[in-house]
């Protein structure tokens, strides 16, 4: 679905992404794992057009999207749940969901119902300002907001960040659930364990390069990964 080839990105004066290539097949969950500052976020941000690439190519269903502006990329069915959730604190929960469907003109009822069914907590709190939610609820809202645009592919930047273990588990369950509904998922995570358990396919990023790749299982078994990211 997404095919990244020889992507190079300079960001903040540093060569953040150095000639990486990877692929996200339709209907799968793919994860990029790696330490802070390895260039994972930059990669996602480049796909959505928030960051300009220096060279390379990003094809979405065969179409080159590198260099296109964010709004037109998003309108093609790509969505990003950004790092730190970045929900709109001054908008209510419901408004946050509606903003997610900003580009759509049709009725939102059905999708709101779906999101509420995935995250019943959001329905309870639909009138609250986004800023008053707890971290986990904000993450749910961020995911729900992303779903409102009816994406074909959802990219997630560290969804487990700062969340209690139980909540993390919930989130990953829901990611799988969403995936079953036909949404392709590209996930980046520091929580390698969780991510690799969930993912069909995984890539390991280190200082701007992809150093390892394989299925989730393969990587979990890999001794280098174990040592570096699982702490053992």
């Amino acid at each position: 679905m997404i095919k990244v080839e020889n992507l190079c990105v300079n960001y903040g004066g540093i060569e953040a992404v150095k000639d990486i290539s990877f692929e996200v097949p339709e209907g799968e969950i793919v994860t990029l794992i790696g330490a802070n500052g390895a260039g994972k976020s930059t990669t996602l941000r480049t796909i959505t057009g928030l960051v300009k690439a220096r060279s390379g190519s990003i094809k979405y269903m065969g179409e080159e999207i590198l260099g296109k502006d964010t709004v037109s990329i998003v309108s093609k069915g790509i969505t990003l749940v950004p790092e730190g959730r970045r929900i709109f604190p001054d908008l209510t929960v419901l408004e946050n969901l509606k903003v997610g469907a900003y580009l759509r003109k049709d009725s939102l009822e059905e999708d709101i119902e779906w999101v509420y069914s995935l995250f019943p907590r959001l329905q309870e709190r639909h009138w609250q300002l986004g800023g008053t939610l707890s971290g986990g609820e904000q993450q749910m809202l961020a995911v729900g907001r992303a779903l409102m645009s009816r994406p074909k592919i959802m990219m997630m930047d560290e969804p487990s960040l700062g969340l209690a273990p139980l909540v993390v588990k919930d989130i990953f369950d829901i990611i799988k659930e969403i995936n079953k509904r036909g949404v392709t998922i590209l996930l980046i995570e520091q929580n390698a364990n969780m991510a690799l358990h969930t993912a069909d396919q995984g890539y390991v990023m280190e200082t701007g390069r992809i150093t390892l790749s394989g299925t989730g299982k393969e990587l979990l078994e890999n001794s280098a990964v174990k040592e570096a990211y699982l702490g053992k």
Partner: protein
Amino acid sequence: MSVLTTKGATMRFGGVVAVDDLNIEVERGEIVALIGPNGAGKTTAFNMITGVYTPTEGDVLFNKDGGKDMRTITGKRPDLITKMGIARTFQNIRLFGEMTVLDNVMIAQHLHIKSGLFGAVIGWPRYYKEERRMKDGALALLERVGLLEEAYELSTSLPYGKQRRLEIARALATEPSLLLLDEPAAGMNPTETLELTEFVRQIRDEFDLTVLLIEHHMQIVMDISDRIYVLDFGKTIARGTPEEIQNNERVIEAYLGVADVD
């Protein structure tokens, strides 16, 4: 022989309790790690210690040489705390971008300067001496961290790993007795990471330091630390030696992720 003690230090932002009843004690010469998932309040704890935040409740006590006679530094200005002997680095490297590597280090020596501004501008002999000493000191430090060749380059033109090292060199230039390192290994590749572990240990011995560090990189943490505190949601959920922590159920659950999902 405690260098740093926090007594029930708590930090609230609005309704959120970022750090709840933090009680840590760092002995002289130790390397202590503060770990925990992102958002657990580790950096907030650093900010309370260095004066960026004033704790909502509780106290931070410090003694440069370690000992019973601890003085409170709660709510003191960051620059004064630095003068007392606590230096830090930042999670998201904060170098002075439009200055050279050498200048970055020399700035950190400004707190030792005794000449006034006009003496400095006019070039009193005393200032000359001070400037010379600052410069020699800075160059020596740069040599020590292996950045001497880049001394006249723009600090932000350095690669990531070197920027981290420069930040440490800059912190050392304030002549601290306690060094706080906020994720020193972030963004480093495995080789650099390995070097870093060794480096931190060396500077501890060489500069007679006590080190408190935040790190995600478990390998480093387990390798380097004498003791570890684990934070989760602002609360201290565990403390102990690396072995103790590695085998602590709560820590495994909270920090290392839910290890076995299926």
